[in-house]
C-alpha cells in the first residue's frame, strides 16, 4: 500500500513540476517569439512591461482574463466551451511520456524521469496527438461561422495529409532503437543521435511536426489574413487564451519529441542531462520561430500535394532503405 502511495505521490509531484515548467516555457516562448520575430523584422518587439518586456506574458494573461467571454448566438454551447480545453489538454498529455533525463535513484528506487515510462510511448504520442485535431475541428464547427468552419475543414484535411507521414517517419527510429519506449529510444542514441544516422526521417518528421503545430508555413486552419482567425475566429478571452497557450505547449512538446527522437535526448558532454535536454528543446523551438519569420504560408492544395506525393513516398522509401541497411549490417 505504501508502495502504491509512493508511486502516486511521485507521479503527482512530477506532474506538477512538468505542468509548471511547460506552462512557464509556453508563456515565455510567446514572448521570445514576439521578440525574435520583431528583431528579424528590425523592430524591438514588446519591451514595455517590466525590464525588457519580461512581464509581458503576465500582462497578456490579465488582459485575456478580463475580456468578455463571448458566446455566438447560434453556437453549439457545450462543444464551443469544451473545444479549447481539448487542444490544451492533449498537448499537455503528450508530455506525460517524454523522458527529460536518465533514470534517477530516490530512496533506493529507480525512477524514470518522465511522468510515466510507457512501453508504447511512441504510439501513445501518435494517438494523443491525433486527438488534438478534435479541439480545432469541434471548436470551429461549434462556432457556427463560415470562417471557423473553413478553418476546421482545412485543419482536418491538413491533418489527414501529414499524420500518416508523421507516423511513418518514426518507423525507422523504432527500427533502429528496437523499442517503442521513448526512454529506450534515447538510450539508443547514446553515441550518435539519429539525426546523423537518418537525416531523411528527421527532415520528414520536422515538416510533419511543423504541420502538427499549425504554424507557418502550415497555419492554414488559422490563416489570419484569409480566414480572420480560422477556427478561433469567434473565441475571445480566456478560451482564446487556451487555444493560444495550447499551441505553444504543443510547440514545447513537439520540440521535446524532436529532441527525443532525433537529437539524442538528454545525451551530451559536460552539462547535466536535464540542461542538455532543455537546450535542445529550446533550439528546436527557436528553429520553429525562425521558420515562421522566413516562409510564406502554403496553399491548401500545395500542402496536400506535399503530404501525399512527396513526404509519404519519401518516408516509405526511407523505411525500406533503413530496413535493408539494418539487415545488411546484421543488426
Amino acid at each position, binding site marked *: 500500500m505504501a508502495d502504491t502511495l509512493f508511486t502516486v505521490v511521485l507521479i503527482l509531484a512530477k506532474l506538477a513540476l512538468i505542468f509548471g515548467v511547460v506552462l512557464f516555457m509556453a508563456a515565455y516562448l510567446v514572448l521570445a517569439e514576439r521578440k525574435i520575430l520583431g528583431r528579424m523584422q*528590425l*523592430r*524591438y518587439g514588446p519591451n514595455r512591461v517590466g525590464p525588457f518586456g519580461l512581464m509581458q506574458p503576465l500582462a497578456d494573461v490579465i488582459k485575456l482574463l478580463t475580456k468578455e467571454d463571448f458566446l455566438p448566438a447560434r453556437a453549439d454551447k457545450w462543444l464551443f466551451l469544451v473545444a479549447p480545453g481539448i487542444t490544451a489538454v492533449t498537448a499537455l498529455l503528450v508530455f506525460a511520456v517524454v523522458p527529460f533525463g536518465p533514470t534517477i535513484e530516490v530512496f533506493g528506487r529507480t525512477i524514470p524521469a518522465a511522468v510515466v515510462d510507457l512501453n508504447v510511448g511512441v504510439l501513445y504520442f501518435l494517438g494523443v496527438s491525433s486527438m488534438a485535431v478534435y479541439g480545432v475541428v469541434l471548436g470551429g464547427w461549434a462556432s457556427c461561422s463560415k470562417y471557423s468552419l473553413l478553418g476546421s475543414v482545412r485543419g482536418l484535411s491538413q491533418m489527414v495529409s501529414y499524420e500518416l507521414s508523421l507516423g511513418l517517419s518514426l518507423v525507422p527510429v523504432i527500427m533502429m532503437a528496437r523499442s517503442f519506449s521513448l526512454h529506450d529510444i534515447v538510450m539508443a542514441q547514446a553515441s550518435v543521435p539519429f539525426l546523423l544516422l537518418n537525416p531523411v526521417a528527421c527532415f520528414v518528421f520536422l515538416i510533419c511536426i511543423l504541420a502538427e503545430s499549425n504554424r507557418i508555413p502550415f497555419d492554414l486552419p488559422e490563416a489570419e489574413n484569409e480566414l480572420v482567425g480560422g477556427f478561433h475566429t469567434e473565441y475571445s478571452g480566456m478560451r482564446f487564451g487556451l487555444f493560444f497557450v495550447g499551441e505553444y505547449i504543443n510547440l514545447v512538446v513537439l520540440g521535446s519529441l524532436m529532441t527525443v527522437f532525433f537529437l539524442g535526448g538528454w545525451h551530451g558532454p559536460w552539462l547535466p542531462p536535464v540542461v542538455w535536454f532543455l537546450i535542445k528543446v529550446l533550439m528546436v523551438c527557436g528553429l520553429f520561430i525562425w521558420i515562421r519569420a522566413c516562409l510564406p504560408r502554403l496553399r491548401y492544395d500545395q500542402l496536400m500535394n506535399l503530404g501525399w506525393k512527396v513526404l509519404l513516398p519519401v518516408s516509405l522509401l526511407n523505411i525500406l532503405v533503413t530496413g535493408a541497411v539494418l539487415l545488411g549490417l546484421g543488426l
Partner: protein
Amino acid sequence: MSRHVFRDIRGTLQPFWVTLRNLFRKPVTVQYPEQKQQLPERYRARLILTRDPDGGERCVACHLCSAACPVDCISMQATEAADGRRYAAWFRINFTRCIFCGLCTEACPTKAIQVTADFELAGRDPLKLVYEKVDLLVDHCGNDNSYNFYHQTGIGVTAPRGENPQETKPMDVKDLMP
C-alpha cells in the same frame, strides 16, 4: 517544373539568411514617448486659426473650409462686426472626425486655418477633442507673416472701385484703348 527547382530551393533558403542578418542589426523603431521623431516641416496634424500681422483674426467665416472638408468636421456661425467686418461667432473643429487631410487649409482664402505638426491629440474623453474657437485661435501668423487679407480687400466695399490700395482702375470694356 524541374526548371524551377533550384530557384525554389534558393528562394526557400535565402530568407533564412536575410532574417538571421537582420537579427543582429539595429532595429529602426523609434521608441516613441522617450524619443521623438523629427517630423517633416509640412507635416499635417492639429489645425489652428492664425491672426494677421496686425493681430486681428484672419477668419472671415466664409464657410469654404467647412465646405471643403470631406468629413464635415468644421462648423461655425458667421456674424458681422459694427464696421461690417465678418468674423466667426463660434468656430468648432471636431478632431475626433478630422482626418488631417489639409483640404480646409487649401480652401481658405485668408490663410486663417493652417496645419501644425502637433499630432499628440489622443485622450480618453472624445468630447475634449471638440476644439472651440478659443482652443484654435493662436497668437501668431502661422506660416505667412506678411499676408493680410483686409489690406488687399478692405472691409466691405466702402471705397469706390479701383480706389483700394494696389488695386488697378477698372477697365472700360467698351473702350478699345489700352
